[in-house]
């Protein structure tokens, strides 16, 4: 079971930029489960991920174990490539 956790904040311009790219990822991999957390409002839920201070954060978990973390602004191509590598590895 693949779960994608996205941590972002409303005030964060990088998050604003990345959201469209994440939406594309969501549609490319519609079989994954997606969870969105707000950096400010969901601190109790995100603490276990040690989010740090750079946003946004995309975490991929397989069977509840983190297998990939992509931090900050990245191109759609770059994210896609990392996810594909991950899938092909399995």
């Amino acid at each position: 079971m693949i779960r994608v956790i996205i941590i972002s904040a409303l005030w964060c311009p990088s998050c604003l930029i990345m959201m469209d790219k994440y939406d594309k990822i969501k549609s490319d991999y519609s079989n994954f489960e997606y969870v969105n957390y707000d950096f400010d409002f969901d601190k109790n839920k995100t603490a276990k991920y040690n989010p740090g201070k750079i946003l946004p954060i995309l975490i991929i978990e397989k069977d509840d174990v983190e297998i990939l973390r992509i931090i900050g602004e990245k191109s759609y191509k770059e994210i896609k490539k990392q996810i594909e590598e991950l899938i092909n590895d399995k």
Partner: protein
Amino acid sequence: MIYLDYSATTPVDIRVLRYFENVSLTYVGNANSIHSLGKDSARVINNCSKKISSILKLDNQEIIYTSGATESNNLAIKGVLLKYANQSKQIITTYYEHSSVVASINYMRNLGFKVLIVNCNEKGVVDLEHLKKIINNDTVLVSIGSVNSEIGIRQPISAINDIVKQYKDCVFHCDMTQSIGKERIDLSKIDLISFSAHKFYGIKGIGALIKKNDLQLEPQIHGGKSTTIYRSGTPSLPLILSMGKALELIYKNFDKKYEHVSKINHYLRDEFGKMPEVIINSSSDCLPHILNISIPSFYSKKMVKELAKNDIYISNHTACSSDASKSLAVYALTNNLKLARSSIRISLSYLTTKKEIDFLIKQMKRMLKND
């Protein structure tokens, strides 16, 4: 104390504070009341609005009093989009906006609006050709601030407005929080303008959204009719009048004040130019009131704290961002994490003296030597 954080907030002008006290005691009525005390209050607020319109040379524009620029930005962005949502669904903004603009736009994005980021050149200035390329009949709002608060980048507001106005259903919102009281700028043709009084020696807790008369907004604070139908609540007469007073005072001898700040800015640039560790992020086209620099060998947070120990107060980045790790604006401008993490903002005033700058430089040199 050496205060060099005027872009975060300014100390209140004592004349503004005294005026606030005076009008608080004189005009006790609620401006929404129909009795004579209420009418007196409504009359002085109305006169204050006329005075502000005259000082800022407004034309067919209404002043909506708010708690400050953050509320004004929220009202402008959400108010336009919720009012005109059926017409089109696209917003254009830049990477350099204040967190209250970014957050409002992001919030509306979550409701289904599409957001486009216009490109900026190597100085952080909007690429007008790119704006022309991405704006279309689906664009309902363009929100671009006149001056970036961290670096001082000035945007070509008039040229942007000309492009926006080619689309009759598109509204231009300009956050002018860092411009009002600091530079002369034509406000008369712009649909929506936000600002706060505490950036020009007024009292904290009052600001305005200036709106073209023919434009409608969906209110964000509902209630009865007040000085406007767009923002309910008992008008804060003392704060409103004190903002009028602060504006009146800041625009007195304005050219001299601007020239003084420009001279201090040049002096500071020259001094930093002699320090090989310092990289100046603000170009000479930026507003002279803001000078952003990076010292890659020194984390900005450490610099701010060390200077504060010597009673010198500056910022590492905008006071309104929760991301403590870096300046997002400097990162966007330089694409260099080291520069973004070591950037500091020195913001100047007509009150700033050469002696204060000399002390700042002396302390910075000492800190760099001991590091």
